[in-house]
């Protein structure tokens, strides 16, 4: 059981550096964001900012990749995502087609450069 839980210090880090700094924005949204009209201009703005921040996270994962993804050269990472987006666009917004296409290009490219 102690193996399953690991050390308590790591769990404390999870609470303080993971759970709290993440959850606070959800609960702030609930307790401070109330009473805003569904179609208001403010909501168009917050949606746009949320979308742009997520786009930033996507760009960051591609630009400064974690773990094993760093073993894939930059040009191949960008080409794979571009191919995935192209497949998504020509298949009338099929997420699956896009994901499969991007993955296949990355695997083929990795195999090709050895």
């Amino acid at each position, binding site marked *: 059981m102690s193996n399953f*839980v*690991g050390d308590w210090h790591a*769990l404390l*880090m*999870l*609470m*303080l*550096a*993971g*759970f*709290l*700094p*993440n*959850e*606070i*924005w*959800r609960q702030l*949204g*609930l307790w401070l*964001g*109330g009473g*805003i*009209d*569904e179609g208001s201009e403010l*909501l*168009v703005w*917050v*949606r*746009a*900012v*949320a*979308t*742009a*921040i*997520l*786009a*930033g*996270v*996507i*760009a*960051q*994962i591609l*630009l400064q990749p*974690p*773990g*094993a*993804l760093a073993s894939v050269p930059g040009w191949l*990472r960008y080409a794979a*995502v571009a191919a*995935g*987006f192209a497949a*998504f666009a020509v298949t009338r917004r099929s*997420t*699956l087609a*896009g*994901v499969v296409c*991007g*993955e296949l290009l*990355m*695997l083929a490219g990795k195999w090709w450069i050895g």
Partner: protein
Amino acid sequence: MWSVTSTILTLVLFATYLGIGALAHDANFSLGWALASTVLIWAGPAQIILLSVLGSGATAVQAAIAVTVSAIRLFPMVVSVLPMMRTPRTKRRQLVLVAHFIAVTLWVECFRLLPQVPRERRIVFTHGLGTGLLVVCLVATATGYGLAANLPELFAAAILLLTPLAFLLSTARNCRQLADAVALVLGLALFPLVSLLHTGVDILISGVLAGTVAWGVHWWREKA
């Protein structure tokens, strides 16, 4: 038809959490820690950031700042989705769990599915959808953790690439207004430029800038 696309999104989510489980194993965290992070954080990007920042030996304060910056996007997500569930009699505490479940996938799904659900049943519906997705992701986290021991590098890289691909395409799919599309494209384009400044809050700066410009374009078009 929506059940088919829903299955695909769940598959993509499953694959993302396979990657998170694998990453947790590689960074020497326990399986219990990995599962607890999925239940408590419930946001792919924040979990990946926490794992990679703590795994690289940075302090808890640095990790907390990186996580909280990545989580700011949850604030407008919650603000924009909750009005769809409120009725005049809804109390705020009834929405605490709904707010916790809001993450990219559930946010996208709420906009797609909630209009087909009667308003007074939307909170219950979201609790069910959130719990179902959470169970799927817990199974994926445990499976990825178990696989990581003998995961070849190529397979691990492929799993990690699923995260940006899935997030990009599911966000693009959800673009309903011009402002959403402009925000997505500008957000992608601005981050590499802003990251050259090394401010530590690059994602926040590029996000607010790109989002505001996108809103400006929308406002200008509405007026014209």
